[in-house]
């Protein structure tokens, strides 16, 4: 009898113990079930959902909407080069006879008129003095004579050039050769100055320089003010083509969304990402070949905001 009751008590004890253990475990594990994070369903394969942003917020974020339409796209190439004198306006003056320089009347940089006397030389053979005259009007660029100097009859001693117009020689790289053509408009800039000259290409060299692998193209510059000095380093913007395309958008209107290029287009539901095919582009605009129709309202500024709104669901994942 007594033994029996003992077992009953033992059994009761075990049951109580087990219950308590389970209860305690339930307390602890139950408490870990839900730590209060509310997660939204991830939005996958839903890249085409429409985004609605209230007009007030659009203004706050600087978002602008435009109507798709034609745009004049001007394409250009940036080239570098230098100013050279116009070879047709340069005179290399060589003394007729070898002799001693008696006197020099001009200095480098002096302006001369055609027929002006630059120096007087006494011929070695005849001991007669003769005048060296300028053949053209222009500026003396080189002058290799000092009084008393013996001058031969082979090398030129004076270089006179008319710098009223000069050439800009631009180097064209192989990859650009197909697009740079005679007659294209060009803007010439000089670094460190505001001077700009607008002209047209009149020449492209028929061969490519073997050393530099570049071809040369030339523009004639009006230099009556004398700002373009031969030897000067310049860069040129050659307008290779100007085309009016049916639809073009500012470059920033195109966003890459999940590997696709898209423009955000207004629909009844809001703004939807519209995959587009791009055509030609310049610094500011890009042509849309496909995906956008004339008259469509699209986000021209602040398209990035729409992109991030679509990506919102995905980028929060590991931040929480």
């Amino acid at each position, binding site marked *: 009898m007594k033994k029996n009751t003992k077992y009953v008590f033992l059994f009761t*004890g075990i049951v109580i113990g087990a*219950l*308590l253990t389970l209860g305690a475990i339930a*307390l*602890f594990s139950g408490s870990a079930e839900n730590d209060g994070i509310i997660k939204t369903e991830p939005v996958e394969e839903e890249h085409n959902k429409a985004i609605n942003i209230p007009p007030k*917020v659009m203004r706050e974020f600087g978002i602008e909407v435009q109507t798709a339409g034609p745009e004049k796209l001007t394409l250009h190439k940036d080239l570098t080069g230098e100013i050279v004198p116009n070879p047709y306006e340069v005179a290399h003056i060589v003394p007729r006879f070898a002799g001693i320089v008696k006197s020099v009347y001009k200095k480098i940089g002096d302006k001369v008129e055609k027929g002006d006397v630059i120096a007087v030389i006494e011929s070695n053979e005849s001991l007669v003095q003769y005048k060296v005259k300028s053949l053209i009007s222009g500026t003396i660029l080189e002058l290799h004579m000092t009084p008393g100097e013996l001058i031969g009859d082979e090398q030129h001693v004076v270089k006179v050039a008319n710098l009223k117009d000069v050439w800009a020689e631009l180097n064209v790289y192989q990859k650009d050769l197909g697009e740079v053509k005679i007659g294209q408009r060009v803007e010439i800039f000089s670094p460190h100055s505001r001077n700009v000259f607008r002209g047209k290409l009149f020449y492209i060299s028929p061969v490519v320089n073997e050393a530099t692998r570049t071809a040369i193209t030339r523009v004639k510059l009006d230099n009556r003010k004398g700002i373009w000095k031969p030897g000067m380093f310049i860069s040129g913007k050659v307008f290779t083509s100007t085309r009016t395309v049916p639809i073009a958008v500012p470059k920033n209107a195109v966003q890459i969304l999940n590997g696709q290029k898209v423009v955000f287009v207004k629909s009844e539901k809001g703004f939807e990402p519209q995959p587009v095919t791009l055509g030609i582009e310049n610094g500011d605009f890009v042509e849309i070949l496909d995906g956008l129709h004339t008259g469509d309202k699209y986000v021209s500024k602040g398209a990035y905001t729409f992109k991030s*709104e679509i*990506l919102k669901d995905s980028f929060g994942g590991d931040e929480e």
Partner: protein
Amino acid sequence: MNKIIDFVLENRLLVLVLALFIVAGGYFSYKQLPIDAFPDVSPALVQVFTQTEGLAPEEVEKYVTFPVEVAMNGLPNLKSIRSVSNFGLSVVNIYFEDGTDIYFARQVVNERLTEAREQIPEGFGDPQMGPISTGMGLVLFYYLEDETGKYSLEELRTIQDWLIKFQLQTVPGVTEVLGIGGWEKQFHVVVDPTSLLRYNLSVNDIVDIVKKNNLNVGASFIERDAEEFLVRSVGLATKIQDLENIVVKSVDGTPVYLKELADIKIGGAVRRGIQTRNGIEEVVAGMVVKLYGTNSSTVISSVEEKMAEINKTLPEGIKLVPYYEQKTLVEAAVKTVTDALIQGIILVTLVLMIFMGSLRPSLVVALSIPFSIMVAFIGMNYLGLSINLMSFGGLAIAIGMMVDASIVLVENVDRLKRKMEGEPFLYVVSKASKEVLRPIIFAIIIIITVFIPLFTLQGVEGKTFKPLAYTIAIAMLGSLIFAVFVAPVLSSYLLKSKRKKKKKGGKDEKEIWIVRAMIKAYTPFVNLFVKKRYLAVILSVLLLLLGAFIYPKLGSEFTPTLQEGTLIVRLSMAPSISLEESKKITLIAEKRVMQVPEVRGTVTRIGRGEVGAHTDPINSAEMYVLLKPVEEWREGLNQQGIELKIREKVEGMPGVLLNFTQPIRMTVDELLEGVRAELAVKLFGDDLQELKRKADEISLVLKKVRGAADIQVDQISGKPQLKITVDRHAIARYGLNLSDVQQAVKTAIGGETAGQIFEGIRRFDIFVRFAPQFRSDKQAISNMLISSPNGLEVPLSQVAAIEEIEGPRQITREQNQRFITIQCNVIGRDIGSFVEESQAAIEKSVVLPVGYYTVWGGQFRLQQEANKRFAVVIPITLLLIFFLLFSSFNSMKNSLLILLNIPLALVGGIIGLWLTNQNLSVPASVGFIALFGIALENGMVLVTYFNQLVKEGKSIDEASIEGAKLRLRPVLMTAATTALGLIPLLIAFGTGSEVQRPLATVVVGGLFTSTILTLLVLPALYKWFAIKPEVSEL
């Protein structure tokens, strides 16, 4: 055991002196204890940061992260290594086993770092360890206010980096001061590529030349006569002109100066983070990082003093404005618990007075509180615990329990004193003490034992709640020491004289009227229940059923969020965002928040500043919302209300994900490893594309498994890249090396540092880079000219393919491998079976390439581990308690009767939570554990007395009724002191109260039911569980 009492009473003075020593020791320990807001839950972690200028995540991973990771393998005590390779920054987190000494960890990491450094290619950055700090180390943030408006952001940053930073770093306990915002001053050499062309130079030539023309050297000394002259050659550039006049080359004797090739000016360094304020402007800010293990409150106050000093030395109109101070939090948290502690002490003393009816015995009992607390301080000091919300909270919780042992003792002395009139008082005290000594010791040991499961808690919960468990346990030990050694002595001194007075008043059951009234009210009930035992059974069953009915209704949460009192609005933007756009959006958000009238200001950090504290990319912004003082708030608005208002304002910002958080919580979350979801499948493998593809497949499979919810695959790509792939054939034609092209690309676009300019001790980088218009878009980059060795200039696009692609935004690695996480929650079914089913499904339908494998983890893994531990620890604890009970009573039946207390106590806790609308949580569970102990103690007190009465020859029924009546006072007293001691925690609303409240609720609720049980059900059931008198008499 009785010898103890004899010894104590024989050496009363000695005991008192020793007790005073303990109290003094406690006080000195208290003075040494560091003060923090919360227990530091940061993992044992060493972070290795490597800054690499301009490298994309793939290269950072390959050249930097990988070598560092590999070097760290096999460190002692290593737990795991995780890494994140971001743009320009590699962060390797090396986690050590909990409890590893941080200096040891840093030392072993440092040894291996030298190895790693050798493996990292020259110029790819130098790995550095993060500050010696933890998640709680960011103690103070400040910004520089410029009232004059004259100073540029560069100048302000220079003041921050070269004046404020150095001074603040001298404050003891400050390990680092990190600057952010504004612009770090640099000397920019802005190269015009066309000029390079003109002189046939490359941008790298410029870098070399600048480096070669900026040196000081020493040339030892010369002797002249009896003297030595030191020789030094001075050539350091000190100003812009010095740089401008560096001769780059000379053509026909004409020097070409650097100024002809480049613009040299002062500018700002490339930055990956900024700081904005109030939606108006950028500011320069700094963060003070506290050294690991130092006392937050002292460090902060020294920093404040220093800041006041610095403010005096700063230029007119500039001042430091702290915008986040952990001090406020520390103070608030400590105040919350200190208030609770003091109120608790007062309440408990009041209760004692009421029940004891006189001052002296109450005093003896009440002295137990300060004594136990002092003992706890000694223990805390020994264990290296800090004073914080949890450890102090433990004391606040234990106040009521600290007096229990002494109550029992003093009450018995008081009772016997009346009973044994005429005997020498010392003898009375001795007898009374000996009578209750055994149950007291066992009761306290049982209470301490009950906390054992808490000591096995791991991770964040362990670190949070262990200090609480420790302080309670030590304080209980203190109260035991007091009850055994000090209380008898004090009683012998203090209660004696009282007895004499009472003698005059005549022999009389001098119970105070309240107690008498209670006994009067109680008697019919106890009679009824003892007579009709089935009523007791019905009552307990009803209570149990009620508990079982309510239990499922309780919500659950892991740990209630600690309110830190500082609000952070975290903005996450698209990963590809630029800093400018990020700033624009942040300013908009700040403006919106500023519209809430209670907001005084906002300070936002975007991205990261100096490496060490934050690693956030620039698409992440953290806004500290500064609130006006409470008095200026609108009527009826509390902090939650304001949070709601702010939320309303900032919600609906396109492309912005919002998150409300708090400073410490945020930092700690960042340091902790692992994911927050219940289930996380980590897919390891090499190829990012493949990982993403397979992860998507896995997520599709998971979606079909019943119970799956919130499935989310990590987005690993999304950072646009301009990829320049050099055509090897093309460069061969021009006689170029790959490195010629890459170096040019790097320097021209990314820029390169070419030495430094010294201004006194301040040093500023010289940064060489192309002018912006020549490097800022694809077209300009295509046209960039590369100079070849044979003097040719080749546009980049002629020798390389340039394309815009989308690359990874960051690469995360674990166990030396790349991985991607698929997170998932499970609803409406058991996770174990869910995992099994999904594993089978994935095995069947997803073919993983060779070398790819999955690891299943997440919160469920932690829970499983915790459950496994508890499944062992809790039965052992119960067994232990049972043995203790058994050895105390020598009776299995008695022990079982006492154990029966536990379930009924639980019911009260559950009801308490339900009534106050709180959730089941870890602190609530801690409360249940404490409740176990208290319920057991009550049971023991009563059953011991029953046994005693039975031994004295009373019938069981008589013993039950009389015992219950006589013991009403101590039982009610211990219950009331414990419960009232907790009341302040129940009603507190200060910082940190939200963690203590569930705990207090459970204990108070549980005490209700358990006291009812002890007083009504226990006497009734005693008969069935009693030791048969004849047996005991034999």
